[in-house]
């Protein structure tokens, strides 16, 4: 473990050095919220954000990406990869957990090189949560801090006295210390202060209180396939897919072709898709294997709480609360659904 303890001006110097050295994507203010975007000036960085509108998965699985280019005349296809290095700065712990889950999904069975190339090009700096979003419940999911977790390259914590504690946990993270050669390592007192921040975050990132333990969710769902909650809530669902799009662990996609003006060359695009959308499971000829709103609604919760557990041993809800905020019909709160299942099970 290598650490640095730096004050505000040295922190600004560090961020400027990162921007000068590489592509940096970081959290910035956007309209009434916060978003990850290319960082042009150190002063635009907002580590005091509560939650971003979209999760940082967009840097590994972009909303739209070119998988390959083609030429219809020669029937040739050429893979397109994006190996340019970048630093992803200010990822919250729960979002880092989600990225680590996507790492498993895209490596399992058939390695997805498009994802892998982007992921390996990234250096991820996780930032401990400073401000709590109104719908955060990552504390209930055990995902409020990075304790006992990996996947990130550096952990950054702003202490109560305003100083920053930087901890590099990989070689890539160490490389980010280049401009901080003279800075001193963290002392016992600041490490203790960080522990207190973690303890505080575990408690306060529980704006909704989940009654079952996360590890109880697969068993609870297993018993609840015919529970009325799916029909009741789905009756209000607009099938808009907003909950899918803002979810840091959703990864379903569609693929479509785009032809250039020459009508000969073009590109095959991968785009985000969502299992809540009406046509998601429809096949050519018209049959829809999940035509009912309730079937789609239930499928989403099973994917979060059971199927991912069966396949990877992980709960694919990290408690970011984005789906709660994004849902127009106000039916997407996982805590309400899971608590209801537990109450009716007792």
């Amino acid at each position, binding site marked *: 473990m290598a650490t640095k303890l730096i004050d505000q001006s040295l922190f600004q110097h560090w961020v400027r050095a990162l921007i000068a050295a590489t592509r940096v994507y970081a959290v910035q203010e956007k309209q009434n919220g916060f978003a990850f975007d290319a960082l042009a000036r150190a002063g635009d960085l907002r580590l005091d954000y509560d939650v971003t509108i979209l999760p940082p998965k967009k840097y590994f699985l972009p909303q739209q990406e070119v*998988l*390959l280019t*083609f*030429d*219809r005349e020669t*029937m*040739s*296809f*050429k*893979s*397109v*990869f994006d*190996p340019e290095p970048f630093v992803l700065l200010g990822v919250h712990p729960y979002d880092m957990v989600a990225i680590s889950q996507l790492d498993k*999904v*895209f490596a*399992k*069975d*058939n*390695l*997805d*090189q*498009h994802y892998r*190339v982007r992921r*390996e090009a990234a250096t991820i700096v996780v930032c401990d949560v400073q401000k709590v979003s109104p719908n955060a419940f990552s504390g209930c999911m055990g995902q409020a801090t990075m304790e006992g977790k990996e996947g990130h390259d550096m952990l950054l914590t702003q202490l109560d006295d305003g100083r920053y504690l930087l901890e590099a946990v990989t070689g890539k993270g160490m490389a980010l210390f280049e401009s901080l050669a003279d800075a001193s390592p963290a002392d016992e007192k600041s490490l203790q202060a960080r522990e207190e921040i973690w303890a505080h975050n575990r408690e306060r990132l529980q704006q909704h209180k989940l009654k079952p333990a996360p590890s109880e969710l697969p068993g609870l769902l297993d018993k609840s*396939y015919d529970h009325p909650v799916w029909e009741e809530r789905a009756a209000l669902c607009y099938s808009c897919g907003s909950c899918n799009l803002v979810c840091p662990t959703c*990864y*379903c*996609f*569609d*693929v*479509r*072709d785009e*032809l250039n003006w020459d*009508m000969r060359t*073009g590109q*095959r695009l991968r785009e985000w*898709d969502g*299992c809540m959308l009406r046509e*998601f*499971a*429809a*096949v*050519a*000829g018209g*049959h829809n*294997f*999940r035509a009912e709103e309730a*079937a789609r609604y239930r*499928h989403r919760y*099973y*994917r979060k709480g*059971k*199927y991912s557990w*069966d*396949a990877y041993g992980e709960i694919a809800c990290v408690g970011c609360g984005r789906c709660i905020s994004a849902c127009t019909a106000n039916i997407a709160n996982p805590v309400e659904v899971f608590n209801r299942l537990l109450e009716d099970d007792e």
Partner: protein
Amino acid sequence: MKGAELLDVYLPRPARLLEKRRLTPHETWFHFEMDEAVALGYWPGQFLEISIPGIGECPISISSAPSNESDSRFELVVRAVGDLTRALHALEPGQRIGVRGPFGSRFPVEDALRGHDLLFICGGIGLVPVRSAINYVLERRGDYGELNILLGTRTAADRLFTDELYAWKKRDDLQLRETVDVADPSWGADVGVITRLIPRLKLQVENTRAIICGPPIMYRFVLNELKKLGMLPEHIYLSLERRMKCGVGKCGHCQINGIYVCQEGPVFSYADIAAVREAI
């Protein structure tokens, strides 16, 4: 790390159309060969992702039986229902497509089915993938027991592979029974749902393995009849249709509950999916 050298699971390989033949007003048979005679190495029951660049890509069952491990030729039967399948119908010999795969599980022709009596039950274009298994078995006829094929189509005009059906009918080492939903006066065989044919079969049930493929509605009725015969779920194999968009277990469209059909299917033992709620 050089991008071009990476093995990309989404990258199609070119294949050339050798010949095509219209089977019905809606379905056409295609015979393709991979460029440079690249071996596909497919098995009965598997599917390919077929590309026409600029239009898109979709999963299509392989209808031919592999003649050997290095087979680079394959046959498809395609119903024109969408943009891509309509574009396929317009393809002329010599023109090329993109191919990914083969993907998915196979009919267990070399293990669980060997040495057993076989009962093939096909509804409509369900015959397309099952034909691969039937022809595989017929090429190794001595390795299998009694052979029964049940075939249901909407009308006589919708029957696929009429030449092959005629040849099968003339063989004395298999029994082909057909039914249509709607018959015209020239139809000389059964009329009605395919399940009506099942009670008439003289089967040694414990030695029989059933292979089923048809429209989604067909499965529960056929399974019910097989249950009445006392057939065990582990002796029944089904090929299930879903939207297998990526073929590599990522995109999510083909999921039946937690199962990626493109990975664990499309061929399933009924014993493995009897309790999977979205399956049948």
